[in-house]
């Protein structure tokens, strides 16, 4: 009896695989994996894999050591590229104001503390409240937010493509800026938040305070690394406030990468089956009025292209 079972198992497996991939009379000359019910099962697999990646946030020890968005964004780069965009539009460069930078930092820390991603906090606190709390008196003010970006250039590109964010960056009313680049855990995943606070001061006193905090060309180069009270590395630019705390653990891959990997695996399996199915049908010269495989292959190719080139990063 055991001998029989051993012989039977590979045959059964082979038969199942043939049924799944090879068009034959048994599967009505269409690979079983391409039957509508199988495609619907793939939909469930896609939903399940997406849910698993999302559910990882409930396992902090796992998600913080594996998943997250590691970026090389620095406040200095953000300032340089913001001013570059303004100069391109024939506008004056924005000057760093320490109070605005403190407001930006407070806003970023508040988002990490209360775990939200919005201009308005869950308790109704608006960006202007952070600016006022920092002691900055303004005629006009604005805020740009970004998260999950890998580098400054990509983030600036996203901001400039959004009409409302672009309006802040190239607003001729704004004279000063505060920037905070902060790393932390937001909604279960390690990420980098970037907060830009724009303002135009009202009083002479405000102007003077701002002037003292200006970034001169030489001061911009003076990047110093110091240890903060929480023993986290803090990057400080002379005359400005920039506090990117390094990620607690270097992450291996982003949640987006993991989601893409699951989705691409599903597409590759279906695409391979479609190609094999077409090959067999053609070789056996099975008559078909219209081959659906080519249409499916074309749209799956488009989806694959999107999955590969889809970029992470959100702006608010």
């Amino acid at each position, binding site marked *: 009896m055991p001998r029989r079972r051993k012989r039977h198992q590979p045959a059964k497996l082979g038969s199942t695989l043939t049924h799944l991939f090879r068009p034959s009379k048994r599967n009505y000359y269409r690979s079983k994996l*391409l*039957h*509508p*019910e199988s*495609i*619907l099962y*793939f*939909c469930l697999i*896609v*939903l399940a894999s*997406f849910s698993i990646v999302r559910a990882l946030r409930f396992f902090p020890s796992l998600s913080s050591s594996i998943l997250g968005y590691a970026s090389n964004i620095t406040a200095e780069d953000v300032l340089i590229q913001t001013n570059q965009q303004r100069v391109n539009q024939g506008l004056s460069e924005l000057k760093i104001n320490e109070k605005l930078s403190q407001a930006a930092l407070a806003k970023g820390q508040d988002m990490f503390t209360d775990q939200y991603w919005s201009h308005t906090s869950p308790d109704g606190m608006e960006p202007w409240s952070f600016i006022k709390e920092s002691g900055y008196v303004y005629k006009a003010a604005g805020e740009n937010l970004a998260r999950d970006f890998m580098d400054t250039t990509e983030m600036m590109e*996203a901001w400039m*493509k*959004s009409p409302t964010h672009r309006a802040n960056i190239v607003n001729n009313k704004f004279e000063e800026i505060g920037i905070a680049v902060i790393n932390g855990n937001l909604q279960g995943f390690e990420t980098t938040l970037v907060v830009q606070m724009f303002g135009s001061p009202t009083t002479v006193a405000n102007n003077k305070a701002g002037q003292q905090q200006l970034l001169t060309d030489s001061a911009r180069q003076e990047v110093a690394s110091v240890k903060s009270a929480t023993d986290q590395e803090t990057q400080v630019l002379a005359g400005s406030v920039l506090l990117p705390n390094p990620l607690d653990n270097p992450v291996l891959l982003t949640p*987006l990468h993991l*989601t*893409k990997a699951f*989705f691409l695996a*599903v*597409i590759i399996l*279906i695409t391979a089956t479609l190609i094999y199915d*077409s090959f067999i049908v*053609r070789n056996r010269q099975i008559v*078909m*009025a*219209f*081959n*659906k*495989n*080519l*249409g*499916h292959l*074309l*749209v*799956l190719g*488009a*989806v694959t*292209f*999107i*999955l590969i*080139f*889809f*970029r992470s*990063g*959100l*702006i608010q």
Partner: protein
Amino acid sequence: MKFNFNHHKLAYAVLLIGIGIFLFYFFAVWPNRVAQRLSSLIFAVFYFLWGITTHIKTSRLNSKVITEYFAVSLLIGLLLFLITI
């Protein structure tokens, strides 16, 4: 497949144009995730309708074809919708 392609040039031309417009629009509206999501859903519906229309023309439309196009459209719509969340 070549034989098939030659007999349905117009249908595949429409599909290729649809895919081209969709790809261009999807990347052009970046970083607007809502617009990307919306265009993905429209694309999935477009593919479903394309499949049905093409099969009506070949007089080979049946419930199995409809469910197959529905399932594939649902799958691509789902993949694109979830990636933009």
